[in-house]
């Protein structure tokens, strides 16, 4: 438990990080630093996106798997680290 808190605090402390969400494999946000509405939106949309991306990668090569996803947009960057059961989503505003 403590490690989780520590990890999240470290990430939150990095420059430009706007929010962190931890989502489980069904799309339920477990832990979040953003408000409820945004969390719901991000969790729902990104969950589907990650599922699609993962299935794409595995379709092309069944031995392959998705390790990391970065969605860079004009205003910020959304980084998603998928795991078997959980995703870690971080929204960062790159400093440049």
């Amino acid at each position: 438990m403590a490690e989780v808190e520590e990890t999240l605090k470290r990430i939150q402390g990095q420059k430009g990080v706007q929010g962190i969400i931890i989502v489980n494999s069904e799309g339920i946000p477990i832990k979040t630093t953003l408000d409820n509405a945004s969390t719901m939106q991000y969790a729902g949309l990104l969950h589907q996106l990650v599922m699609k991306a993962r299935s794409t990668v595995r379709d092309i090569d069944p031995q392959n798997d998705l390790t990391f996803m970065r969605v860079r947009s004009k205003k910020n960057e959304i980084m998603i680290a998928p795991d078997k059961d959980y995703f870690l989503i971080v929204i960062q505003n790159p400093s440049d």
Partner: protein
Amino acid sequence: MEIVHVYSKLRAEFGRQCLFSDRPAELLVDVPPDPSLAQHFIQKKPRDQALQACLDMSEHQVNTKRFESESRGINHVEGGWPKDINPHEMEQTIRFRKKVEKDELYVTSVVQLGQGMEHCIRQNNAVDIYQEYLEEEEEEEEENQVAPSIASTQNVYPNELKRTVTGLSWHPDGGRKLAAAYSCLEFQKSSRDLSVDSYIWDVENPNRPEMTLRPPSPLVCLDYNPKDPHTLLGGAYNGQIVYWDTRRGSTPVEVSSVETSHRDPTYKILWVQSKTGTDAFSASTDGQVLWWDVRKLSEPTDRLVLDPSREGNLDQALGAVSLEFESTMPTKFMVGTEQGVVISCNRKAKTPAEKIVCTYDSHHGPVYALQRNPFFPKNFLTVGDWTARIWSEDIRESSIMWTRYQMSYLSDACWSPVRPSVFFSVKMDGTLDVWDILFKQNDPTLSLKVCDEPLYSLRLQDNGRLVACGSQGGGATLLEVCAGLSTLQKNEKSLLASMFERETKREKILEARQREIRLKERSRSEQSRSEDGGREDGEDSPDQLIARAEKDFFSVVEAEKRKRRDREEQSNGVRTKP
């Protein structure tokens, strides 16, 4: 039952009996070989024989079915919660979350993911990994290697009947539709059953027109209302003006009456900016420019006779072939005539005489196209005979820039709406020329053979990328212009402005010089006349003139006689001297 057919013929009718006999073979001709004939021929060795062993190829065309795609939205509701937990209940959700957080698997995964994530975050903060290096280089190569990169032909809208595409107009909202006017302009060539319809095409579908317009007489020109994209005005071959609303269908909503319309085909019709948005004006070779209010097409609201002597005399009027109207200058407009003169007019003049402001003697033939530069309204482009000329409003004597005499007649031209220095022109040999005057003045920057028939009309879409040109055979071709010719280059406006200024100044200087010379001549001739005038002043009557003439005559005769006598004396003197 046996079917039997019996037919009989008289023995005498059979003819003579054939009698065959057997004969042995006999030799008819024997031609022995003559080796001497071989001398005439040379034996050829070695011999080259070409063989080809290549794959058989054949060309196939496949047209796939249209891929239909739709955009849909998804409504996300919170889901995924296990059946027993009500997502709206705060307590239950919190309890669930706490349970998950205690799970060991959760802890390890989060820690692991956190490490990877931290790395990426730090990476982001350190360097912009998506930074573009060498950005400037990309821009340079664009430059003007634009010329080889092509305008690609996109769609051709054919028509089985041989009518010329005489007018084109793009839909004002985004240009998805193109209206094309078809008519047969050759005198009395159109047959009775030739269709009078004109079509509105959708850019995506070249096979069938989106809508047909049925005027009472073939349309020579068309224009979409820039304010209301559903309404169209067309000028017909018999001089009438026809008004459509595309929502109401193919038949015109209103047609102007024949007595008050033009007496010749209406060559050009344009919408005018007005408060009501319902005004338009049309020009025709009968020498009149008529203003109309589309709510009441039974008679024109105003009339102008294109008489250069400003008397309003219809017999002396010049026939108009093209019109020009710029919405930024609502009171002025220009008319291009059949006689090659461009007339600049003022709409708001009080008397009809003042309506015609000035004339420019431009071409040797009809001025087929006339357009102001959308970025520099003081300069306009005219096309006629074999050249395209660019004029400045202030210089009346001649154009400031012109192209070389081309190989075939130019039939239409227009400026690019996005690039001030680019204009397009079409010729009678079926080529489309793209001219970039900042790049090359002598030749077109890009010349494309669109079709084998003469091209009669040309229109550019408002975004500057699509060009539609219409040919004599009735086909309208849509071309896409490459990005280099349809994106504004840096400094283009200022460069072009300085070019126009320079040319205008040159012409002004030339004009001033001409005037000087003329003035000098005139003053010289006046001077000499004034000297004679001193003598002549006292001798006005014809008698005195006659007396003077006699005196002059006799004095000349006397002088001649004297000269002859002197000569004789001289020769006599020479003889008698020794």
